[in-house]
């Protein structure tokens, strides 16, 4: 049995930053991760584009992780190769499995930062065979960048989110033939910068308003049948095209990894938190992709650091969070956080429900003008509103 003030579950960008935030506020911190390293998904993202906000510099994923690691005070205890198996929020304890044994950890407060996993091809109900050669983008990314193996020779990418775009370029550079990226939306799912540097630079075609309707081949993938879709994402008969590939890389979104806590705290798609990082259970904080899917690791790190700080204050009896509802108004598809706690500025992250050229973002009584908004790119606004009963966030096209 071990006793700490703040336990941080997951040592990706959110968890590392939380450990830093908590330790800098005087807490005795334990940082846990199942991998044998810290940094989480960053370690496999060897492309550049991390840290522009936080470090005013463009770093690769592993470099960003290294920077953040150096900021963690040395008195933080880090346990890698340690899997959190069960959490007992009422008793404020959790069970950790590692090669060293099975340990019970008692905490005063917790920061939950387990990130997101990828939606799988199998969950999309796309008919056909079940061959080798279908990988999620993150899986292919890890295989190529960390393990050093190529999944196939000729690939198609499904989903134009950032991970999909980045992987199209990676596979192309490492010598695979990438014949295109298929996206069911009428606009790209990832950052514009990635469409340009990952696809346009290498003449990789992007098929918007298209989806995969069937896969063929066994035991190896041989063909992917794609079709145009209508406004409801239903394939349009007669538009099917057969593409001969041995690899299908699927990047159709991320799902917060929240199972361990889902029974105990309020959740929607992710774990719901206030702008202080507090969940519906006072002693539990959460940050990063387990709360909502962020575009930029910079945002993730900032939210993690804040959650860590507040978890430390909570552990010392110096934090009393408020939860003023932050509500979705028109034009908003994704909104974070769920509640406003006036002890920190309100950092609002939102995704619009459709592309807008010029718009007004309203947060309670505040109005901000914005340009060129797309659902793919998260809007981030930080304000310090007065206490109200609730804060409605909306985006109106002008």
């Amino acid at each position: 049995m071990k006793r700490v003030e703040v336990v941080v579950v997951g040592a990706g960008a959110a968890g590392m930053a939380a450990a830093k935030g908590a330790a800098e506020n005087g807490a005795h911190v334990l940082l846990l991760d199942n991998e044998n390293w810290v940094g989480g998904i960053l370690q496999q993202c060897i492309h550049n584009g991390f840290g522009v906000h936080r470090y005013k510099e463009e770093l690769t994923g592993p470099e960003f992780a290294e920077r953040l690691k150096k900021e963690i005070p040395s008195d933080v205890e880090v346990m890698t190769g340690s899997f959190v198996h069960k959490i007992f929020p009422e008793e404020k304890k959790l069970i950790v499995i590692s090669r060293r044994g099975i340990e019970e950890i008692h905490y005063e407060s917790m920061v939950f930062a387990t990130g997101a996993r990828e939606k799988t091809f199998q969950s999309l109900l796309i008919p056909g065979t079940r061959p080798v050669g279908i990988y999620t983008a993150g899986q292919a990314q890890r295989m190529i960048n960390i393990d050093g193996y190529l999944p196939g020779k000729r690939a198609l990418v499904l989903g134009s989110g950032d991970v999909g775009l980045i992987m199209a370029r990676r596979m192309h550079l490492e010598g695979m033939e990438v014949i295109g990226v298929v996206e069911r939306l009428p606009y790209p799912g990832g950052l514009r910068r990635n469409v340009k540097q990952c696809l346009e630079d290498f003449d990789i075609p992007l098929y918007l308003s298209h989806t995969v309707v069937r896969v063929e081949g066994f035991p190896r993938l041989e063909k992917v049948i794609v079709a145009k879709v209508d406004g409801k994402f239903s394939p349009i008969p007669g538009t099917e095209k057969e593409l001969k590939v041995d690899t299908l890389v699927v990047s159709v979104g991320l799902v917060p990894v929240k199972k361990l806590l889902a029974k105990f705290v309020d959740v929607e798609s992710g774990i719901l938190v206030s702008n202080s990082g507090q969940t519906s259970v006072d002693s539990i904080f959460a940050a990063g992709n387990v709360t909502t899917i962020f575009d930029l690791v910079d945002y993730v790190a900032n939210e993690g650091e804040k959650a860590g700080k507040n978890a430390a204050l909570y552990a010392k009896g110096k934090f009393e969070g408020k939860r003023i509802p932050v509500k979705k108004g028109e034009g908003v598809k994704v909104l974070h956080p769920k509640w406003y706690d006036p002890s920190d500025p309100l950092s609002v992250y939102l995704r619009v429900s459709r592309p807008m050229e010029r718009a007004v973002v309203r947060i309670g009584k505040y109005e901000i003008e914005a340009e060129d908004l797309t659902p793919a790119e998260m809007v981030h606004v930080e304000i310090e509103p007065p206490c109200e009963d609730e804060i409605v966030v909306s985006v109106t096209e002008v």
Partner: protein
Amino acid sequence: MKIAVIGGGIVGTLIARLLSFYEADVTLIEKENDVGWGVTKANSGIIHAGYDDEPGTLRASLVVPGNEAYTQLQKDLDFPFMRVGSHVLAFNESDLKTLEELYKRGEKNGIKGMKILDREEVLSMIPKVNPDVKASLYAPSAGIVIPWRVALSASDNFVMNGGKLALGERVVDIEVSGGRVRKVITDKNEYEADVVINASGLFADEIAKMAGAESVPIHPRKGEYILLDTQEYTNYVLFPTPSHGSKGMLVVPTLSENTLIGPNAVDLPPDKKGDVSTTESGLKEVHEGAKKLIPSIKLNKVLRTFAGLRPESPQRDFFIKESEKVWGFINVAAIRSPGLTAAPAIAEYVVEELLQQRLKINLQKKREYIKSIKSIQKVSRLSIEDWAELVRKDERYGNIICVCNRVTEGEIVEAVKRGARTLDSVKFRTGAMCGPCQAARCAMKIAKIISREAGIPIEEILLNADGSNIAVGKVRP
């Protein structure tokens, strides 16, 4: 006495295991790279109570004993099995009549504990059931099983008793002379044989033809499924009332805490015995069918979809018989549903009745043989104290590899020790790679463990069949 068993499905492996208790030289030949990858891999996994079959058929006589045999078989072979009970749900007057008939038939077949429940009782047992339900036929003896685990344990037990397992070998011919079987020829080897047992599932007609023995034509009838990552809908196996001989679409809880819905039934021509692809219309039909039993079933937690093929023949009964043309050739063919249920009884019937009685082969029990084995520990099911004790002895049981289903390095190493060389072999033995991430996070880690333990380069590690290499080369060769 040299015996060749063709086909490592649940039927072939249970026959081979039973034979391994006797003084005989037994070889089990399977074309796939592991046992249990044929019909045994993709089905509803139900151990039926046994009211579906007309008394007097071979099926009826094997299903109820088969069901009963599972209690002891589970003790011996240590596979996941639970008698959760089943309900046949009735929604109208004609269904109610059918329930009565099933009940009577079940009594004749010797089923114990059946009851016809009224609407209130059904609703209290299955709160999410379609409220239009009128009654159900409840059979407490029905159970659920992980079918490939039966085949794997049976085959492991067979090997422990000295049986020879020939995996990845396809039987291409059977040599017959003087009216007797002589040899089984595979694409890699030849095996002398005095007796050949044909348990080759969908291909039993083709194998019988190789020997010039009697055969029944077999065509595949596809059944598609959707596997859901939840068990919120039912704790019991749910059937609609059968009509026109079809069992209809079911809702089945599984022993991996999931829910299976399906199967539909689509007849395919005999040359489509490898077509286990799913179809858009089939998956729709499955969802619609399942909603008739549990209207709230949603497809927001889909783990995966798959399809299985029933070995159907025009005569609807099993075809289990010694050949009258070729001495020593035994057909165990047309083992359609409920073949899983009947399998232990089929094995007994083949060894006791056909070999000993009809062919008059006097098999002697070995003086010593192993009859019960332990399967790989599922450590995450242990108490924390027991798990901790295990980690103290072997730290690899503290290294979580499959995070979805909490499978440790220790379990994977043990699977490799027991012969697993492909990712699917590890999956079917340990339950790794079956969770919501569908191997995205652990496949490569598992490949590395197989590579290290068995000394196979990563590029040569297969997902399942030959040619399914998970990597085609190195990034920097």
